[in-house]
């Protein structure tokens, strides 16, 4: 889903009631040349897969972590909740996603 980063906090302090949203310096777009969803950071481009993009689309400051996990579980039988939480934790550690307690 996302290149793993060394030294991230394994717990991440991610709670099920948190409402993640994209950090303002990050942009989720679609690249027509590559036909893939893209996450834009100041000096980096991350080419996402479908489930990664779905998670980030739900990071709108309204959906809680629990709701995002449930939604992904419904869309993809193959994406377990732990993976969704780890993905979000890594993005929080890289400051691409911000958390607000819902």
């Amino acid at each position, binding site marked *: 889903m996302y290149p793993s980063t060394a*030294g991230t906090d394994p717990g991440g302090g991610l709670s099920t009631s948190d409402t993640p949203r994209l950090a*303002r310096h990050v*942009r989720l777009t679609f*690249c027509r*040349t590559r036909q893939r969803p*893209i996450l*834009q950071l100041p*000096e980096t*481009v991350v080419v996402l897969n479908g489930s990664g993009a779905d998670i980030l689309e739900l990071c709108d400051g309204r959906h809680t972590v629990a709701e995002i996990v449930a939604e992904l579980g419904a869309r993809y039988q193959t994406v377990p909740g732990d993976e969704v939480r780890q993905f979000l934790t890594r993005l929080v*550690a890289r400051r691409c996603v911000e958390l607000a307690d819902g």
Partner: protein
Amino acid sequence: MDSPFGLLAELTYRCPLACAYCSNPLNMADYSAELATDEWRRVLAEAGDLGVLQCHLSGGEPLLRRDLAEIVAEAHDLGLYTNLVTSAVGLSRPRAEQLRAAGLDHVQISIQADEPAISDRIAGTPSWRRKIEAMGVVKELGWPLTVNVVLHRNNIDRVAGVLELAEEVGADRVELANTQYYGWALRNRDALLPSRAQLRAAEVVVRAARERLRNRMDVIYVLPDYYSRYPKPCMGGWASRQLTVTPNGDVLPCPAAQSLPLPRASVREDTLERIWAESPVMTAFRGTDWMPNPCRSCDRRELDFGGCRCQAFQLTGDAARTDPVCHLSPDHGLVAKAVEAANADSRADALPLIPRPHGVRPSPRTPTAAPRRR
């Protein structure tokens, strides 16, 4: 062949600063026939079609282009992520507001040191205070801010102060980038290259700061390749992920590549797509087929791509040799000698620095650009 992700748009080589570590070319006058606004518009559209997602607006000082907001707006309309790489001299509040309205996504401001007098001396002009003010405006307008500091022998001992300053101004990222020796920096290399002891001390400070700031600020530290065992994976491979367009429209895999003896390719004469796919300046070192040994048989050839072609050319006269930074390179002695000199007890304290000139005024567009000096 991959599609490029990033376009480095070098809008002008003119600059209010005169930093001796500048990587701009020595023959700046050859770039004074700057692309017009419409030409940049076309370049940006062609870059978008080619798959470019990020546009880094740089120079020289991009704010010296009066049409900067128009260029930003065009890039933004094309869906590109826009990044302004600036000295911040000229980033007044109205100018900043204009760029914000045009859709600029991110601002990177350079500073030369944490202390005003030292920073101004390195920049060659009073600028520290204006930079700090501009950083405040950037944060106020809600932009993410990267503070960039080029490290060298005369400021690397101040890295703790630099990190404190970045924290104070509310930077989201700080880039501590050891000087890369191209252009004016190569000319000033012996004066700029830090000692091993200086680097060790800086790394201790950076490591501690990373730990302390890890949820608040990204700390990016670019190692000096002269002290590395292996070369850097320059540009992620030649003409693989990035391309550069110089102020006069030359297209290059990286800004330093203007120094190589390759035929020039210009957006004034061809499309970006054809240049990227076919021009010798792009195909010369793409992939791994060009590699000599020790790279050809090396396990790391897909990791570092043989290092930097420009560094190989500048140090050995042959762009196809292994980057002499690599300890396996037959030319490694060239780098080892410079490192040895930087660490010699007999080294003079402060060697003279040649400041880069501010640059020449742009000339009106001429149908054919002046021949390039080599």
